């Protein structure tokens, strides 16, 4: 199953970044696909990006809400929040585990040999504060003399933007290099810190700072696709703790908002068939899935 997930992550990454003419055009993709909302964190100023970043688009809409209203357009982010909510309602944070290019990058970085550390559990709450403050309140309320807000999360924090857009565009467009200053360097430090942290800890950005992950986490208890624990079968052997990339103790908190439904606990850890996957309460896998995984292993 891990093999399948890696393939899905790769394909999703390519679909969201499918514009490979950029080395020649030296610009970003400007075609109609950019109206589509990427499910995961993927900067739309990345030269290869074919879709728009939901967080970037939402901040831009909220920042421009006063001007939009003044011109009779009620752009409050309906389309973006609708698209994000639709994906969240069906899959929740499964998107983080299966279709987020930045999450995938962090997984690959974590494979590099290095000492590995746990992330303190309390830090997980920070991403909700970032969502509220940097994605919603500041773009909406901190406006300039023209009534225009800034995309605060993109501007001051987003390491994906620096990695996928900032660095490549500075290489492609030499003219931009003259404009970089403190802001770019501070973002570069944030990006480097998260990259180094991702080598030493599993998915630190997803667990601590990602506002998109925080939004999808709100659907932890009401998403259509979710994992279920059968308390009759669970022996509390705690094997699921060892494999979880998000630090979830599944047998203790099966509705944990951090779960990205990577299925590692179900397929790699639980020997008692106590974990199953469901769609709106209807079983998708379970005993049968487990048998299939065992058959796959024995070839």
């Amino acid at each position: 199953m891990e093999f399948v997930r890696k393939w899905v992550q790769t394909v999703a990454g390519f679909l969201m970044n499918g514009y490979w003419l950029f080395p020649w055009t030296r610009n970003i993709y400007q075609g109609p696909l950019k109206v589509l909302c990427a499910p995961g964190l993927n900067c739309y100023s990345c030269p290869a990006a074919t879709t728009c970043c939901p967080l970037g688009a939402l901040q831009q809409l909220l920042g421009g809400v006063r001007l939009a209203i003044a011109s009779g357009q009620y752009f409050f982010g309906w389309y973006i929040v609708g698209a994000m909510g639709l994906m969240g309602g069906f899959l929740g944070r499964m998107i983080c585990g299966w279709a987020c290019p930045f999450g995938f990058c962090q997984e690959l970085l974590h494979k590099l040999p290095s000492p590995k550390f746990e992330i303190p559990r309390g830090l997980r709450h920070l991403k909700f504060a970032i969502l509220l403050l940097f994605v919603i309140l500041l773009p909406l309320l901190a406006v300039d003399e023209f009534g225009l807000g800034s995309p605060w999360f993109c501007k001051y924090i987003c390491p994906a933007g620096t990695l996928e857009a900032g660095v490549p565009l500075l290489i492609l467009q030499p003219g931009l290099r003259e404009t970089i200053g403190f802001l770019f360097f501070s973002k570069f430090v944030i990006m480097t810190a998260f990259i180094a942290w991702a080598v030493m800890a599993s998915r630190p950005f997803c667990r601590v700072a990602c506002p998109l992950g925080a939004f999808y986490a709100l659907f932890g208890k009401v998403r259509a696709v979710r994992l279920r624990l059968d308390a009759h079968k669970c022996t509390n052997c705690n094997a699921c703790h060892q494999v979880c990339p998000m630090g979830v103790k599944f047998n203790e908190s099966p509705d944990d908002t951090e779960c990205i439904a990577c299925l590692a606990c179900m397929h790699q850890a639980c020997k008692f068939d106590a974990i199953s996957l469901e769609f709106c309460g209807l079983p998708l896998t379970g005993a049968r899935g487990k048998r299939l995984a065992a058959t796959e292993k024995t070839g």
Partner: protein
Amino acid sequence: MSENRKPGRKPDQTIDKAPLWLSLFFLALLLIGIAIDEPGRVLEQARQICLSCIGVG
């Protein structure tokens, strides 16, 4: 004990409709956005290099 842990629950006996209602709600938001041409504005923004995103804006 959370609902997810309840012993003896037969998952194939009930359909959990909450995610479907929630998705329907967000679908409605999405359609409102399309009706007022919000995607046009999103496209307009996404076609330009976001200088803030790359840290030079």
